[in-house]
């Protein structure tokens, strides 16, 4: 381990087993100091259990948690420099806002409680509410109190457990920006647990996608989105068209795949099939697919795939979403910006499709093509 790894939060082979299932399976994770880290996954994937183990509210079955080089695996929650913003906020109903925020400082017998609380309430713009009880505040205000109550302790890591889940969409968007601003301002490490992929992508600089107790893939949002390594990530993070193909071999920097009769090329850096695999899933994001009338020139150097029939058209305003039935029976999704350069296609029309090879990716055929599809 280098000196970089000594800083920040480090999880090593962290495992949590319950009587009849394993919530977290040998998880390895490094969260660098000062980063905004998101643990993203569907409910029941083990992300909240992981967070609770870091907070000390859950004891790991095995594995190690270190923070700034110190082993805190079995440290009591009240002895860890870690604070949590709980999913339901868990504000103390018998204390006013001021005392809620001051709670951590008072327990640690810090002096200058008054000035610190005032400063923190200013940061979250709740100075005028200091003497109200939590029940008198709106959901968004309560959320900010919960944030202030945790932030004021200047924890080495701030844990956020789906903190925006209870807010309506507009408020959620506003709070996402607010949280990001505060994180940049105070420069603390944030670990954010969420099942909302859009939220994770907007806020985090690193995302770990979790499924069934393991991390499927980790990286910057754009990297995960553009080059998913598993069918779960391809489907859970945005949407993907996954088309069965026969691997023909590698030519230079490209893998050649026979995709239902059309030969397509995929860069080797984007191919995640095991060496020697005969089959694979060719993946392409709906907005990367280009669509045109039969024989029309399409602005893509790859082969065009003819014979699609439009089966559904959804006009969304900024874009149009098509469903196109391919000659082999599969329906593919196509999102097209409404640039106005060409009329919209109607249901029943025949179209050609194409995409630039550098946008396609190739996934392991043994994985479930429907994994991570949101119902």
């Amino acid at each position, binding site marked *: 381990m280098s000196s970089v790894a000594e800083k920040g939060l480090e999880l090593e082979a962290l495992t949590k087993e319950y009587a009849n299932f394993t919530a977290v399976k040998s998880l390895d994770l490094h969260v660098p100091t000062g980063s905004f880290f998101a643990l993203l996954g569907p409910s029941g994937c083990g992300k909240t259990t992981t967070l609770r183990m870091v*907070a000390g*509210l859950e004891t790991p079955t095995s594995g190690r948690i270190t923070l700034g080089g110190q082993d805190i695996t079995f440290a009591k929650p*009240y*002895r860890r420099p870690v604070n949590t913003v*709980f999913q339901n906020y*868990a504000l*103390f109903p018998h204390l006013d806002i001021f005392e809620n925020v001051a709670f*951590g400082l008072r*327990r640690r017998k810090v002096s200058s409680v008054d000035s610190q609380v005032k400063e923190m309430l200013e940061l979250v713009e709740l100075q005028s509410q200091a003497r109200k009880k939590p029940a008198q505040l709106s959901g968004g205000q309560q959320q900010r109190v919960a944030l202030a109550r945790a932030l004021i*302790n200047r924890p080495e890591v701030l844990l956020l457990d789906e903190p925006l889940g209870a807010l309506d969409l507009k408020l959620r968007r506003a709070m996402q920006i607010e949280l990001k601003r505060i994180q940049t301002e105070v420069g603390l490490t944030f670990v954010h647990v969420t099942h909302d992929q859009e939220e994770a992508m907007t806020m985090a600089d690193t995302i770990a996608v979790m499924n069934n107790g393991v991390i499927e893939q980790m990286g910057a949002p754009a990297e995960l989105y553009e080059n998913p390594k598993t069918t779960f990530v391809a489907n859970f993070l945005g949407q993907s068209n996954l088309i069965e193909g026969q691997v023909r071999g590698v030519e230079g920097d490209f893998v050649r795949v026979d995709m239902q009769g059309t030969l397509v090329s995929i860069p080797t850096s984007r191919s995640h099939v095991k060496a020697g695999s005969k089959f694979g899933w060719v993946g392409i994001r709906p907005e990367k697919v280009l669509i045109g009338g039969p024989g029309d020139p399409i602005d893509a150097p790859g082969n065009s795939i003819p014979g699609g029939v439009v089966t559904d058209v959804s006009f969304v305003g900024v874009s149009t979403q098509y469903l196109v039935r391919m000659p082999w029976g599969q329906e593919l999704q196509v999102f097209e910006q409404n640039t106005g350069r060409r009329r919209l296609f109607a249901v029943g029309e025949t179209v050609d499709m194409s995409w630039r090879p550098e946008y396609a990716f190739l996934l392991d055929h043994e994985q479930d093509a429907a994994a991570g599809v949101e119902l």
Partner: protein
Amino acid sequence: MSALPSGQTTAPVPERTGWTGYILMVPGIVWLLAFFVIPFYSLVATSLYDPNGSTYAGYEMTWAFGNYADAISKYWGPLLRSLLYGGAATLICLVLGYVLAYAIAFKAGRWKNLMLVLVIAPFFTSFLVRTLSWKLLLADDGFIVNALKFVHLLGPDGRLLATPVAVIAGLVYNFLPFMVLPLFASIGKIDHRLVEAASDLYASPIRAFFKVTWPLSLPGVVSGTLLTFIPAAGDYINAALLGSPRQRMVGNVIQNLFTAANDYPSAAALSMILMLIILVMVLLYVRKAGTEELL
């Protein structure tokens, strides 16, 4: 209601006669009149009758406020003892009851309902029978006394019956469920995640208890202590069965005045005094513990 013609947006509200509410109140008012207002009036009146009358000769209303002064000067001992025994029993009930209610609410798991039934189970037997069995338990040659003698907590002539210990023990036993049930209701409602939040914010388990669990359980503490203290301070069965004349509580005096001495005015005056003392104490207590922090 979308079929309504435009302009008529809501169905016409039936006109209130103003009488329905009063008619619904009649049974309650009749009940209160018959079983509270009239008896209470009779008690107040009796307490001011001429103390020289008797049930045979009849009583005269002489506005004898002196009855009150006489009652206090004659019976201040039992009065004080009642408050003391009642207070001690309430405190012991609070400690025992809190631990029990906490355990049932948070630790009992699937045994929760069974344990609650067990708390109430003694009520299926008569109050008198249960107190009488304590007489057997604490008897001079009973195993409890013998065991205490064996470890020299009790002298060779020591006894438990006819001591304050026996009376208070009886009160604690008889009124414990009145403490446990409101405490359970209050503690059971506390969101365990608040305790987790406290521990996340540097509170040790003990501090988390005193800063979060205890204040949030105060409504149960207040109602539990009231439900225990008020009947315990007015109780006379425990003192009669488990105590001696030296453990006489005000309830015993009132019972004796009403039934044996036939001194109704003094008995009524003493009842009023006990009621007023408890009322004032309860008001002070609720104001101090209840209203400010709880709401």
